[in-house]
């Protein structure tokens, strides 16, 4: 087994050495064709062997946890929002709005994600309502991002296929720094709102959004723009930016934790592999961070089994532990690993972090050439 792993790692490294040249990350560029030719597009991915009965238990949907968390979240926003309102015009407004903004954008992102998968609540309409609200809160067009995220799950970190790769190799630091205040993705999204409002679709979007959805996309964008215009009107009427400080602007000034979590998901790890243990990172976090992130720190688990709702991910993690590399011990440790890897990738784009597997694990699956013939124990 050790020989096979070494052989696989060697093959993958050779492939990565060949990729030292700067690659084109566009999903409508030459890398898209290359990924398809290599069998990496819509491929079969490695999954850890979990008995069906256990999976059924883990996949079970419940309304309770998400309703509880939603009440806490919106309750927290009302309290922090009121304190921020009272502090307006004083220096206290800075920490008060920072706290409000983080509580607005961070769960906004994770609720957008979980409800987009339709797993957070048992009741479908609850997922949909929360998805639409959260999409606006994080300024993501609901339908385009639903399809973009589906592609991200089909072809996770496959260059030329995945539209949600945060930054290419070598990394573009400017994008990461701008994203602390959502100043890269935010303006891009607003540009897309305008494009959709006038009934046009981006070329990359056409690659993953079916034509049957275009009309819906255009109408959603018009509604978003109306809301933004209403907020702008409220600001003009009030003679203050205060209304926008509660809705719309928090997507920008409250984005720091969103990007902090976001960079730890995949950056510094493998591209172009068919094993989420190689391209995703699981991190232990405290209960407060896990509440904000809705357990997406269990990222290997989420990608391998997206049917499992956020509240069952800790249990899934325990089931998968013998088959996975050790989880990063903290957010800080994960951030250090990411930054260190990105610095190395600046000089050597082929550099990746790879963690050893425990002796109980099945070997890593670097590409389609390795048919592991995995049998799940019933």
């Amino acid at each position, binding site marked *: 087994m050790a020989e096979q792993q070494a052989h696989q790692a060697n093959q993958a490294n050779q492939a990565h050495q060949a990729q030292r040249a700067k690659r084109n990350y566009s999903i409508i560029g030459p890398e898209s064709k290359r990924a398809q030719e290599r069998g990496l597009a819509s491929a079969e991915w490695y999954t850890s062997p979990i008995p069906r009965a256990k999976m*059924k238990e883990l996949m079970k949907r419940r309304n309770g946890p998400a309703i509880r968390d939603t009440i806490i979240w919106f309750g927290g926003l009302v309290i922090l929002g009121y304190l921020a309102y009272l502090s307006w015009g004083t220096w206290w407004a800075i920490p008060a709005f920072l706290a409000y903004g983080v509580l607005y954008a961070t769960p906004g992102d994770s609720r957008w994600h979980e409800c987009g*998968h339709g797993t957070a609540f048992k009741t479908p309409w609850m997922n949909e309502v929360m998805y639409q609200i959260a999409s606006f809160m994080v300024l993501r067009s609901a339908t385009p991002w639903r*399809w973009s995220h*589906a592609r991200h799950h089909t072809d996770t970190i496959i260059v030329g296929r995945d539209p949600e790769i945060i930054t290419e190799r070598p990394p573009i630091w400017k994008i990461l720094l701008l994203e602390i205040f959502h100043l890269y993705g935010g303006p891009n999204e607003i540009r897309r709102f305008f494009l959709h409002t006038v009934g046009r679709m981006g070329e990359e979007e056409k690659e993953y959004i079916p034509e*049957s*959805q275009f009309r819906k996309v255009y109408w959603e964008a018009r509604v978003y723009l109306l809301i933004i215009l209403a907020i702008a009107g409220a600001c003009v009427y009030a003679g203050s930016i205060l209304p926008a400080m509660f809705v719309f602007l928090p997507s920008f000034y409250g984005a720091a934790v969103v990007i902090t979590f976001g960079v730890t998901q995949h950056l510094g790890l493998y591209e172009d592999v068919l094993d989420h243990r190689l391209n995703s990172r699981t991190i232990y976090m405290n209960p407060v961070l896990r509440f904000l992130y809705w357990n997406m720190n269990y990222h290997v688990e989420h990608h391998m089994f997206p049917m499992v709702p956020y509240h069952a991910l800790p249990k899934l993690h325990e089931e998968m532990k013998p088959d996975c590399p050790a989880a990063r011990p903290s957010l800080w440790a994960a951030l250090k690993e990411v930054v260190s890897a990105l610095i190395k990738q600046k000089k050597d784009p082929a550099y990746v972090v790879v963690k050893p597997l425990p002796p109980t694990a099945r070997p890593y699956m670097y590409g389609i050439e390795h048919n592991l013939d995995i049998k799940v124990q019933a």
Partner: protein
Amino acid sequence: MSDLQWVAACGVDDIEEEDVIRFDHGDRTFAIYRTDKGDWHASDGYCTHERFHLSNGLVMGSVIECPKHNGRFDIVTGAAKRAPVCVDLKKYPVKIEGDTVYIRI
């Protein structure tokens, strides 16, 4: 004259209520379902959105959710119920004889 024939797919005890299993026949693959009411259904095995087998999915009442992208189908009608699935699932007639589940393909 129709070429369709009844093929034994599995035993009635092979599937629990509210569950699904895979059945391969020649070069074709199917999903055999048992809903929460205990009735039986069969469809093409792969999701109409991407090539992922529905037998790894979750049956909730009479709905099947695809394991990869959480798209949903009505098991009874095959209708696509939730994005990213937009195309209905092809269904096949099912009958039970003795302890065996047959599908007409």
